[in-house]
């Protein structure tokens, strides 16, 4: 059975054919057992669907229901069209970030290439001793037990 015949048979079951086409299909069904069986199957399926198709009842009137849907659609469209407020400081952040990056890079390079010459004055453990006399050597140590820092200058007097 070709596709055109199948479609014509379906249209016959649905009463969509002209009287002339319907007579032609009836004649065909009288001579073709396979077409008859298929037609019977299609009718049973249609009857089954018609009997068991689920129905949905709106809780309110149809107009009210659709007006609600329309209102929601228009609201979401308006929200999509509204421009988003700019993030605070975004424009200056765009300017400041490259400068900050360059400054950080310069400081990093300076600290790597040039050590600090001046000592940090508040560094607690900073300790600097200079012995100008050539003949004097010195030993420095801190005694925790005695609570004193000792600078021993060995001048070779003994």
């Amino acid at each position, binding site marked *: 059975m070709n596709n055109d015949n199948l479609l014509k048979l379906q249209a016959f079951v649905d009463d969509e054919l002209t009287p002339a086409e319907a007579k032609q299909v009836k004649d065909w069904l009288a001579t073709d057992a396979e077409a008859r069986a298929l037609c019977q199957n299609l009718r049973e399926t249609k009857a089954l669907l018609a009997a068991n198709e689920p129905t949905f009842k709106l809780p309110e009137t149809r107009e009210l229901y659709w007006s609600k849907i329309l209102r929601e659609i228009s609201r979401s469209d308006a929200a999509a069209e509204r421009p988003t407020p700019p993030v605070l400081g975004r424009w200056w952040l765009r300017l400041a970030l490259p400068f900050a990056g360059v400054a950080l890079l310069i400081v990093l390079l300076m600290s790597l290439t040039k050590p600090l010459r001046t000592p940090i004055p508040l560094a607690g453990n900073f300790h600097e001793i200079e012995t100008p006399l050539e003949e004097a050597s010195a030993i420095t140590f801190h005694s925790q037990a005695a609570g004193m820092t000792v*600078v021993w200058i060995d001048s070779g007097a*003994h």
Partner: protein
Amino acid sequence: MRTISVFVPLFLGLILPFEMIAAEPKVGERQFEAQLIWGTDKEKPGDPELKPVEPELVERLQKVFKWKYYYQVKREVITVPTKGAGKVTLSKKCEVEVRDLGKPMTEVKLFGEKKLVKRITQAVTQCLVMAGDDRNDTAWFVVLTPK
């Protein structure tokens, strides 16, 4: 008699408190006590001007050094103004200069016979002892203590 009765209360009431206030460190000033100490194993040194060192300091020195006895040659208070320096003479040969480098950092200079022997830059929060050996197995100590 009348003169004495006027001047004694005047001295006690005005001049003495003024002198006491003047001896106190002013705001921002720092004071250090510098002592020149001689360390020996001899119990009775010949020099009668030598004074005994405070027992607490002797105990601390004995923890570090080998000498049994310690005698004070001279004791001076160094007043150091903010960002300034103070200098004292502890003997004919020995002088100490303390310079404020911003609390608590201090620069200490030790001079021997007017020549700079030692320059120490550090935070003097505890006792700083500059010491050296001397003849006859004795030693000298310059003890600098913040007041």
